[in-house]
């Protein structure tokens, strides 16, 4: 029997475009201006002064600009998406680098005039005879000797030996937490805090002498050039034009009196792995492994900083960080790890898995179901540098304790760019939050998942971002996470597709805390947001937090000071473009468009829903405007985007 099956109603949301052909951002702006006018506010009110406190020399231009125009965060998040969407490494890195310009910095090498130009190495003896392989080896060799090592020297040329040691020891101590702090007596904690404060004061005296741009530029060129050679080599192997066995066996006969170290690929610290299950242990400069389920026990000596490049072409590999600064970690140098195929496990510790610590660190994983584990400052984390995880495909698990998963400390831009699969991001569960910020219950610090952080009041913060382009993702953090920030910093979480779940306790989901900025920009999917407070578009103490959701039927739950909450002269904004959404709050007195006073004047809290049939438990209601009893805030649920006509009915049918 023939049955006509009504087939497919495809809802096509051309990203960012409404039915009227204008970008969503146009409607968002219009709606915000409309609500603000009704509250006797205007868009230019979203501005903070730069000099509430003394301006330090480490502040980033991007953050200064966005503090002056906090609404610009939406456009910035869109640009982050645009620059990362295609998975082009060079483009993503350029965006990161460009946004690391300091406020007071005048000239920079990029983008038109790179600091460094890669000149191919000559004069090395060839051990392997395969052209493509030698090209890769010679590229790495050139990157080390012509780019990274000279850049490394220049970057730190103004520092004394003692100051270099300071970076490895004292500054590291400032970042790392200690679980023992939870049980220390008060005078000991006070004493430790004072010591760290003295460290910071000492660093401020010489930190501006670090010329990190030179090293980052070298790292970027190296990262892109090496990837290009890997792609060529891998393609030739895949096509059968060359075979791995030939690459490994076709070698030169070495004259008896010639040292093997003078041969390309055979220098100390260089290792070539085969197709079997190999074990690599130690502090390497370079490893390439052609296959097999390999195990890497990697270490790094920060007192002898050097570039590291690790390339694994296939297999389900396990990478273990035996010391800090291992696994795609650049410590005072450049560290790159490329894993092309396989379901891999990265067991990082501190400063691992795409960590740039006064340097450039990148972990590039092209495919597979990967597991990332780590402690502090890992998984796309950067301090005075760039830290990047680019995971091009597959559902992945990211698990870390602190300062991780798209984390940027001072002069740092840390990011995870993930392109495929339903991913699971988990941070926290190790270091207790001892200040009772979230009440008397013991909670854990996360400070992760698109988190920017500054060391108050001495060092302004950096930029931390997650850009996730596919899959139904789950984000879990506890205190501080998911597009939030602290002290002249910026945290971004950009999620393009999928039905995502965002769970956090406090200071999260678009929160700018203490002169800081955070934006969560979810582009599509039926999402679920859950937490306790100071979240979902919340700004505290001259901070601005924005929660933007452009599509899908979403559910928001929280207790208080959220969903467009401004506190202590902060700005909190929640904007939901489309979909039939549900909003639940418990404390109605400080949510859904609320601002409270400090310093004798108010904050700004805006709640905006632009379309759909929405459900409220709180101040709002469908198709209405409201003002809260606050200084100053309100909300509206008003049809600013007409029902989208981009619903395409496919008339094709088929017979069974």
């Amino acid at each position: 029997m023939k049955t006509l099956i009504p087939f497919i109603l495809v809802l096509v949301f051309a990203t960012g475009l409404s039915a009227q052909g204008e970008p969503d951002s146009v409607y968002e702006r219009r709606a915000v201006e409309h609500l603000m006018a009704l509250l006797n506010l205007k868009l230019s009110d979203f501005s903070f002064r730069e000099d509430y406190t003394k301006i330090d020399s480490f502040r980033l231009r991007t953050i200064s600009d966005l503090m002056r125009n906090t609404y610009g965060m939406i456009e910035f998040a869109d640009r982050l998406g645009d620059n990362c969407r295609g998975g082009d490494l060079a483009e993503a890195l350029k965006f990161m680098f460009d946004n690391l310009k300091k406020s007071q910095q005048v000239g920079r090498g990029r983008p038109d005039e790179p600091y460094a130009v890669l000149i191919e190495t000559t004069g090395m003896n060839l051990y392997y005879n395969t052209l493509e392989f030698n090209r890769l080896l010679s590229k790495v060799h050139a990157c080390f000797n012509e780019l990274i090592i000279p850049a490394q020297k220049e970057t730190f040329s103004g520092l004394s030996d003692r100051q270099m040691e300071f970076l490895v020891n004292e500054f590291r101590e400032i970042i790392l937490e200690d679980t023992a702090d939870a049980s220390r007596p008060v005078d000991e904690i006070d004493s430790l805090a004072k010591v760290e404060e003295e460290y910071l004061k000492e660093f401020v005296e010489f930190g501006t002498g670090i010329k990190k741009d030179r090293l980052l530029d070298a790292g970027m060129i190296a990262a892109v050039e090496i990837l290009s050679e890997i792609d060529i080599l891998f393609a030739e192997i895949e096509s059968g034009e060359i075979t791995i066995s030939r690459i490994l066996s076709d070698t030169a006969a070495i004259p008896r009196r010639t040292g093997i170290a003078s041969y390309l690929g055979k220098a100390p610290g260089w290792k070539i792995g085969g197709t079997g299950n190999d074990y690599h242990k130690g502090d390497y400069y370079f490893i390439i492994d052609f296959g097999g389920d390999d195990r890497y026990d990697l270490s790094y000596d920060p007192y002898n900083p050097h570039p590291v490049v690790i390339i694994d072409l296939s297999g389900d590999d396990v990478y273990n960080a035996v010391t800090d600064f291992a696994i795609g970690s650049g410590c005072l140098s450049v560290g790159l790890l490329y894993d092309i195929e396989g379901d891999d496990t990265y067991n990082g510790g501190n400063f691992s898995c795409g960590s740039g610590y006064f340097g450039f660190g990148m972990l590039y994983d092209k495919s597979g179901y990967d597991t990332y584990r780590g402690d502090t400052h890992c998984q796309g984390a950067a301090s005075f540098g760039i830290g990047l995880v680019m995971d091009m495909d597959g559902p992945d698990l990211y698990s870390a304790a602190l300062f991780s998963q798209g984390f940027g400390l001072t002069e740092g831009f840390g990011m995870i760019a993930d392109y495929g699969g339903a991913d699971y991001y988990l941070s926290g569960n190790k270091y207790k939050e001892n200040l009772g910020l979230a009440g008397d219950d013991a909670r854990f610090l996360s400070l992760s998942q698109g988190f920017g952080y500054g060391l108050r009041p001495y060092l302004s913060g950096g930029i931390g971002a997650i850009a996730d382009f596919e899959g139904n993702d789950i984000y879990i953090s506890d205190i501080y996470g998911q597009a939030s920030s602290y002290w002249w910093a910026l945290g971004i979480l950009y999620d393009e597709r999928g039905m995502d779940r965002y769970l956090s306790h406090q200071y999260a989901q678009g929160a700018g805390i203490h002169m800081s900025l955070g934006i969560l920009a979810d582009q599509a999917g039926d999402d679920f947001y859950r937490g306790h407070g100071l979240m979902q578009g919340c700004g505290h103490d001259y901070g601005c937090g924005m929660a933007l959701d452009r599509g899908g039927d979403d559910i928001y739950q929280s207790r208080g000071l959220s969903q467009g909450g401004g506190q202590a002269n902060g700005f909190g904004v929640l904007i939901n473009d489309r979909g039939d959404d549900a909003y639940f709050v418990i404390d109605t007195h400080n949510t859904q468009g609320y601002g409270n006073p400090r310093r004798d004047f108010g904050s700004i809290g805006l709640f905006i829903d632009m379309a759909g049939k929405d459900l409220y438990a709180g101040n709002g209601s469908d198709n209405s405007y409201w003002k809260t009893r606050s200084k100053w805030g309100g909300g509206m649920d008003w049809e600013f985007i007409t029902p989208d006509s981009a619903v395409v009915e496919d008339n094709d049918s088929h017979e069974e």
Partner: protein
Amino acid sequence: MRNRFHILVSVFGLVLISASIISASEIEDKVDSLFIIASSGEIRYRDMVQPAIDSIAAMGEAAVPRMIEKYDTQDARERHTVSKILEKIGSPAVPYLLEALSIDDTEKVSRICYTLGNIKDSSAVEGIIGVCDNDDWRVRSSAIGALGKIGDSRANETVTVYLADTVETVRKSAAVATGRLLIGEAIPSLVHMLGDTFYGARMTAAEALVKLGEKSVTTIADSLNSKNELLGNLGCTTLGRIGGIAAAYAVAPQLESVSSIRRTLAVEGILLSNSSLACGFVEVMAETETDPTVRFFIQQVLDKYASQ
């Protein structure tokens, strides 16, 4: 004999001096020790924070010099604690704080002004006025704010001058202080500030006008058609918050504005004014109004006054 007397006096003097040195040092040690607890943010010590603050405050004047030194801290929690303790000590701290206003550290001077404002001792007025012309806007803002909190009319003239400061935060502080001091002469300046580029100044000026009440109505009404749209918009809201028939009638002509936002705010002004008489204007406009936002607010007015 005279020598022996001199020796005795000298020894006695030394004992006294050393006793006072020991005493001062002991006080500092005690303050330092208590302050660590008083300023602790640790959840484990939460119950001990207030007793520690109280203990330092109980030391009174003796603790003040050490506390003023602690204003140097860069830690926000410690800074708040210093202020809290000095406020609790109150008037005995004022002479020391006034003396400290002469230092060059403007960040510290700004914090001292803040504390003096919270102590609310009128003997500080002249001293605070003396720092109002500081080049650092933070000092000006804090000093003007303090004058408002103290509430002494000797500050009226100074406060009014700073309604026109070049820095928006200072204007805000002046607007707040004007409201606290109820300076009627400042009404024209406050009305002008309803169109301020900084929301903090704008909104606090509106609040000051609301506090000043009916005497502001005419000046606001006269300015509703200002070219500065913000001024007229916020003027409607302010009149509504002042309330009463005069305010509502002053708003009513704005119901015919070409701007839908202005009409909305005028309707809302009438809603806030609690003037059922002015409701008639809204009822009339309901028949022709097409803008959905304005209509939403019209309905609110009609619902509110339906029974009347």
